[in-house]
């Protein structure tokens, strides 16, 4: 996959869907003909997509389950209106993006998180201790805007390129490239700060040890 212009190539994980597009389309057609097993398969696929993208974008397990469930319901209800079974996944991604935006707004209204889009929180206030890579990343993602996280999620979780992401969030490709580029730049900036702080911490510990020896 080609990365967005303007940032160094962090390769997106391929979404590696277990099923080919043809197989997905076949299941969609079966579901449309009332095949219960295919409907369940469709619901599971849609739910999983919503759950995974929401987990990346929102970092809230319960909210992610809500999003997954809502995506599954919307997909099952909207299936008869889908014009081309080949476009099932793209359509599902659009629904996922819409549901995540809705969930994010709801969360902001309820003020569930201490930071919100655009809020400036000092890095030092958050990274007060050395974190594992995973926890560090989750916290760093929390420093991004909701939209940046959503775009990053579509890129990395589903392996979508900028054109596909633009279709999913109904934005221009240039906007998507910009969001991706800025999000990755911000993560790098935070990574560098974390690295510097980690060195400082190690230095402080070494000095304390020296003092203790004396």
């Amino acid at each position: 996959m080609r990365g967005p212009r303007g940032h160094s190539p962090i390769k997106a994980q391929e979404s590696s869907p277990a099923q080919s597009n043809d197989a997905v389309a076949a299941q969609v057609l079966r579901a449309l003909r009332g095949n219960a097993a295919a409907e369940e398969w469709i619901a599971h696929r849609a739910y999983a997509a919503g759950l995974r993208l929401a987990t990346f974008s929102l970092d809230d397990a319960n909210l992610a389950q809500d999003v997954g469930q809502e995506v599954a319901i919307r997909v099952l209800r909207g299936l008869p209106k889908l014009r081309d079974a080949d476009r099932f996944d793209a359509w599902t991604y659009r629904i996922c993006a819409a549901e995540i935006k809705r969930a994010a707004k709801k969360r902001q209204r309820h003020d569930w998180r201490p930071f919100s889009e655009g809020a400036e929180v000092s890095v030092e206030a958050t990274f007060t201790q050395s974190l594992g890579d995973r926890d560090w990343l989750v916290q760093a993602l929390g420093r991004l805007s909701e939209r940046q996280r959503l775009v990053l999620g579509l890129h990395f979780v589903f392996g979508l390129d900028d054109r596909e992401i633009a279709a999913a969030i109904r934005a221009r490709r240039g906007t998507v490239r910009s969001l991706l580029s800025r999000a990755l730049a911000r993560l790098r900036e935070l990574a560098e700060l974390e690295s510097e702080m980690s060195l400082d911490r190690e230095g402080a510990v070494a000095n304390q040890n020296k003092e203790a020896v004396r």
Partner: protein
Amino acid sequence: MSEISLEGSIRSYVAEIRRLSPDPDRLDSAIANSPGASRPRSSARSYRWSPLAIGLASLLLCAAVATAATGVLSSAVDSFLGGGDPPGRQLSGGEVPSWLQPTPGFNAPDKVSVVASAGDEHLYAYRQENYICFDYGHHVGECRSPAEWRGELEKRKLFIRGPLGGSTWFGLSGSGIASIRVEYSDGPPTEAAVTDGGFVLNADRDRDPQRLSGLDASGAVVAEQPLDG
């Protein structure tokens, strides 16, 4: 943290996320709350029908500006609507598309046929309960009552149906049409044979399709439909 470890962090986090599975109870609830879900539909009617292709690719196909001629159904389609076998070549065993194969909870059609083909794309026909169905490749399909089909197909001699936006066009035609021709703003036309009242045609969207014509066996144009690019 270096760039490499940033990438590694994202990869491992995404790998962790991909292992997440839906909550089974919530999934069941989602299915149960969806109208029509998890139970076989009484008919295939709820399966959407793809309307006359108003657009092909990003082109818009002008709807319903057909020739003045009133179409008469092809004999094969007419027979099918009247209770006969699906038109075209009957499929058997593994030839039947996967989504029409018998599976638990699915009332699979007894007979499925291929009306017309172009490469790997096929126009399928079958009867499901009291409905007449056409599937346009694996993209989309429609099931309607014989009366509905008849009312629609008797209006004109040329119908493009199926998915929008692709280069493969599926369609049905009235009697006396032996082939279909697509004319472009530039270059030679594309032609495809009509078999048993149906056709599948690979159009060149990049050359600005202008007109769809139905030709009789002598090559004379007997039906036309402008394509508005």
